């Protein structure tokens, strides 16, 4: 990553969050990872208290998004990010357990950049996250305008 990109990890399960973080780090990614355990906190951080996203201007985010959240659906967050003029170019990677075809289609329709189903088996899970980390180290993330 050419710019200091902040990885925003929205994942309600703390254990999953830690495992994801560990495996991303193992891939040699040293960017800041901000974990959020619910949608509202993450939204507040990204969109600011006024909800316009103005505060995020100039910062580069990469969003790791789980769809099953306690307070709201990940799909709503995805929709809001992709509809916001400042944040719409931030890559969103949906990382969830659902492999429902309809859900996947909906996410891509709404502008999600990558959809990954969490592998059920831990070995595959760790492996997938490590590869995702390797992917992070090469992609370009534009800053919010």
């Amino acid at each position: 990553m050419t710019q200091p990109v902040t990885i925003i990890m929205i994942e309600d399960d703390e254990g999953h969050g830690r495992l994801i973080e560990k495996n991303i780090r193992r891939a040699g990614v040293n960017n800041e990872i901000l974990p959020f355990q619910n949608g509202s906190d993450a939204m507040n951080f990204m969109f600011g208290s006024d909800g316009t996203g103005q505060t995020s201007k100039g910062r580069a985010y990469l969003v790791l998004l789980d769809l099953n959240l306690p307070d709201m659906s990940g799909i709503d967050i995805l929709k809001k990010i992709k509809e916001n003029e400042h944040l719409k170019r931030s890559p969103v990677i949906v990382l969830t357990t659902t492999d429902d075809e309809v859900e996947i289609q909906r996410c891509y329709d709404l502008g999600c950049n990558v959809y990954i189903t969490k592998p059920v088996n831990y070995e595959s899970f760790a492996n997938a996250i490590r590869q995702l980390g390797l992917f992070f180290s090469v992609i370009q993330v534009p800053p919010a305008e």
Partner: protein
Amino acid sequence: MRLSTRIRRIPPSVLLAIGFALMVLISIFAGFFAYQSQQSAARVAHTLAVEGEISDLLLALRVAESAERGFLITEDEVFLTRHAEAASAVKRQLIQLTALVSDNESQLARLRILRPLIERRLADFRAAIELRRQNRVEAANDIVRRTENRDAMVRINAVARDMLGEEAALYRERGTEASQSYMGTFILMGIGGVFILVLGLMALLALRRSDRERDEAQQELIETNENLESLVADRSRDLIAANEEVQRFAYIVSHDLRSPLVNIMGFTSELEALRDQIFMQMATLRQNQNVKDETEAETEEAQDSEEATEDELYTDFDEALQFIKNSISKMDKLISAVLTLSRQGRRAFKPEFVDMTEMVDDLTGTVAHQAGEKEAEFKVEPLPNIYSDRLALEQIFSNLIDNSLKYLRPGVPGLIEIKGRETPLQVIYEVRDNGRGIEEKDFQRIFELFRRSGTQDTPGEGIGLAHVRALVRRMGGDMKVESVFGEGSVFTVTLPKKLPKNERTAE
């Protein structure tokens, strides 16, 4: 209940029966009255006949008298003949009259008075005629002139009048009787007629009412049928909704159970990695210590015992981790099974025409190698085709075929027969094997999730048949098993020829 409604409730058949009974009664009474009036009429006629006879008798007596007088005056023989005729007529009339009034004691008594008087008159006539013949004109005239003879005639007339008077009284009496009989008949007929008319009217009304009721019932039936159809449709929709709810529930539960499982698995792996690091560090530490203590020979033993403890610790660690991992993978398999089942339940069916014989041949082909190893043989008869979901059918039959191969009797060459037949609306397929069979108490159990039957010597999770039955039921069919333990089993799958429309199908 008001009387009128109660009458209206009488069924037409009862009304008709009452009407019929009335008719019979009226007929009996009418017959009786008719007989009575006929009797009266006969008696009236009899009275008239008696009156006629009496008049004839008197007339004949008069004729006999006038003929006698004519002969006395003219001495003409013609009068004699006429007299003889009249006298015999008088006798004849007397006999007839006696016969006619034989039933009437008072008339007979009068007749007994009349008879000697008439005979005496006739004897007088004969005596006068005899005297005239002998030309004793004066003597003959004497007989005619004798007053007692004239008195006899007066008495005859009086008795005859009495008789006539009695007959006239009888005539009046019997006439009234007859007319009363007629009146009775008429009144009876009239009342009966009115009754029958009323009954007929009631029966007509009852018939019309039952007609109307039948029409209403028919209408109701039609409406009920229509309602029933929509009711069945509603119920199907409810069932499908309930089924979907259960599927969703199973999906969410299995899904949510899996999340913590990933953590347990993940951190167990992390622990394993940590353990390796710790033991590595411990080894390094010991090595460094060894270098320091190289000169001290007595530590050799202590070092050995330290290494042994370390190995023991390592195996203990390993055992614990292995148990955790095994349990997790077992739990993972179970959750996966539930997830697969619920996902199957969510998959939309795509109905198409399926050549079942071809499909089953393909399925047996894929397990031919396995079958060869177990010395099992397949016998597939031509199967009826079906319009349904191909993937579901493949899953059903591959499961059944796999099972039949899996549970053969050791040492007995397997024979697996697959056949089918059809009814107007359904197709019925049978998978029959000569394997180990299932005990009757397990007939239901084997279709339950995670349940298995018999000796647990083959790998499996107890999912296959649960899945198969769930699929068959979703396709609108049902399945059952028949088996003799130790001889073989028959799995029967009954499916609708055409996948029902209310089942969720691909849009």
